[in-house]
């Protein structure tokens, strides 16, 4: 039975979504200021118009829908689902006005990809896009990444197989808001620290690689934002391949790994609890899945003769696998080379890495290693149950901030998400195939979209059919919301007609 939502429910969801839009507008206004300082008048106008629309719509919504009701868990899930859809609408305005997109849908796709930390891009002539508009693309990654982590550590701790926020001892508060500012503050500190260190390292390495100091700083800033928020956008169309620098790639590897770790784990490490890194189910599972997919990819590179010397295997192959497993999507090779030169095993390993993704409680996409670990533990428990006498009591434990007993609830949620992830990837591949694309290439791009990774084999391009772009937006949305938040919003809409009062 569904309870029919009333006006107050929608008012509350609208109020919080409007606050998000207003915040995005303020950020857009700051970017417009940067465009003015740089004398990029077209971009300044486009960003100014976008900021004006977002701030006025956001403030109007905030004032007219003001509500003192407490945000409960289902409201928060529906708000997250609605906010991503609406915020991208306003984020797309300056992109569309820049003239670098085929139409409003393309601009919306780009903004949605930016705000969900996906990194798939269908911009035209990226290398001549204004600097401030490029900054706007990357800032969407930054706020999208921050929002993802905060939502993952608060809203998505319910019913999605996660194991809590920063500390397991914390009881779940029926009200969400008290937790959000505290978590947002810590996450911002961590992102800022890695971002600044990344900018320093990348400025130095791109400068040593031949860029003038000013350009080196600009490239470094955008790359650091993209890597630490596991986004995938890059300042140039060649992505990281533009720099031809092993040191740039190594710096980005460190940032991508930092971004792929749970901010709950960062919290423990910042408090000096280093043991957590070695004991936590997620870090162990991540190491295991990373070894398997990277080993498979390396063998694939060797078998297909794509790369056979150690330096290229490391710089191209290893970097690509870190980028895929952290669901970042920064790339060091041209997209089509993956199809033409890499054989089957290496791209299949990339699909596996993207589908699994990083840790829950990070800005990565995918099913998440925590759920893979829980499912693996559950299989081990089932095998033990079969092997041991019927009277034996089989108890399986795992470490997540403390030793925990494996219970049915989190395992069931993990299996549900695993199945939903696989089904969504397959569905996207089938849609691509029905539209005339090769199934394996469509499956690759669908997996990239669902896991919020920026890799593409060219199926999602400016020339792709509009229906495919819409499907990809849907996949990015489902993936970012870990399915259940999207279902909650659907539930509200369905309950309007079928729910009981």
């Amino acid at each position, binding site marked *: 039975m569904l309870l029919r939502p009333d006006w107050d429910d929608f008012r509350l969801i609208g109020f919080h979504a409007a606050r998000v839009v207003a915040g995005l507008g303020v950020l857009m206004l700051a970017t417009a200021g940067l465009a003015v300082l740089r004398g990029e008048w077209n971009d300044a106008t486009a960003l100014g118009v976008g900021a004006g629309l977002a701030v006025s719509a956001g403030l109007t919504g905030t004032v007219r829908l003001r509500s003192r009701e407490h945000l409960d868990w289902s409201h928060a899930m529906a708000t997250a689902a609605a906010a991503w859809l609406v915020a991208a609408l306003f984020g797309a305005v300056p992109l569309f006005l820049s003239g670098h997109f085929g139409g409003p849908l393309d601009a919306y796709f780009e903004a949605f990809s930016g705000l969900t930390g996906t990194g798939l891009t269908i911009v035209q002539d990226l290398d001549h896009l204004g600097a401030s508009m490029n900054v706007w693309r990357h800032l969407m990654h930054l706020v999208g990444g921050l929002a993802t982590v905060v939502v993952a550590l608060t809203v998505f701790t319910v019913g999605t197989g996660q194991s809590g926020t920063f500390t397991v001892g914390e009881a779940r508060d029926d009200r969400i808001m008290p937790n959000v500012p505290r978590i947002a503050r810590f996450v911002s500190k961590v992102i800022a620290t890695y971002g600044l260190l990344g900018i320093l390292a990348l400025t130095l390495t791109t400068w040593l690689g031949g860029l003038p100091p000013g350009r080196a700083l600009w490239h470094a800033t955008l790359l650091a934002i993209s890597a630490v928020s596991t986004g995938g956008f890059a300042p140039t169309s060649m992505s990281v391949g533009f720099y031809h620098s092993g040191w740039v790639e190594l710096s980005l590897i460190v940032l991508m*790994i930092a971004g792929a770790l749970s901010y709950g784990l960062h919290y423990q490490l910042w408090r*000096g609890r280093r043991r957590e890194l070695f004991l936590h189910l997620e870090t162990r599972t991540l190491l295991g899945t990373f070894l398997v997919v990277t080993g498979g990819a390396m063998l694939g590179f060797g078998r297909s003769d794509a790369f056979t010397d150690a330096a290229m*295997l490391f710089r191209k192959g*290893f970097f690509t696998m870190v980028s895929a497993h952290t669901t970042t999507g920064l790339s060091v090779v041209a997209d089509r080379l993956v199809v033409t030169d890499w054989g089957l095993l290496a791209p299949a390993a990339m699909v596996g890495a993207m589908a699994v993704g990083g840790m829950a409680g990070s800005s990565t996409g995918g099913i998440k290693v925590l759920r893979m670990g829980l499912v693996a533990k559950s299989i081990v428990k089932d095998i033990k149950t079969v092997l041991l006498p019927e009277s034996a009591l089989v108890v399986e434990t795992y470490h997540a901030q403390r030793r925990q007993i494996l219970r049915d609830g989190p395992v069931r949620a993990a299996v549900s998400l695993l199945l939903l992830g696989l089904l969504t990837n397959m569905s996207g591949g089938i849609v691509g195939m029905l539209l005339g694309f090769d199934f394996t290439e469509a499956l690759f791009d669908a997996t990239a979209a669902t896991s919020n990774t920026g890799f593409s084999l060219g199926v999602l391009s400016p020339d792709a059919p509009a229906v495919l772009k819409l499907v990809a937006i849907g996949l990015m949305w489902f993936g970012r919301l870990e399915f259940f938040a999207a279902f909650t919003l659907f539930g509200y809409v369905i309950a309007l007609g079928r729910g009981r009062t």
Partner: protein
Amino acid sequence: MTDRDDTFARQASRGVGVIVLLSLAVALGGWLMAVVVSWIF
């Protein structure tokens, strides 16, 4: 040491230090994997 003595800089250096070392260890593992695979093929 009290919580007040645990400054932001100290917390950050602890957290970041561990992650940088971990990432470099992972990269070293990747390099060794690349050497082995290049030797096989």
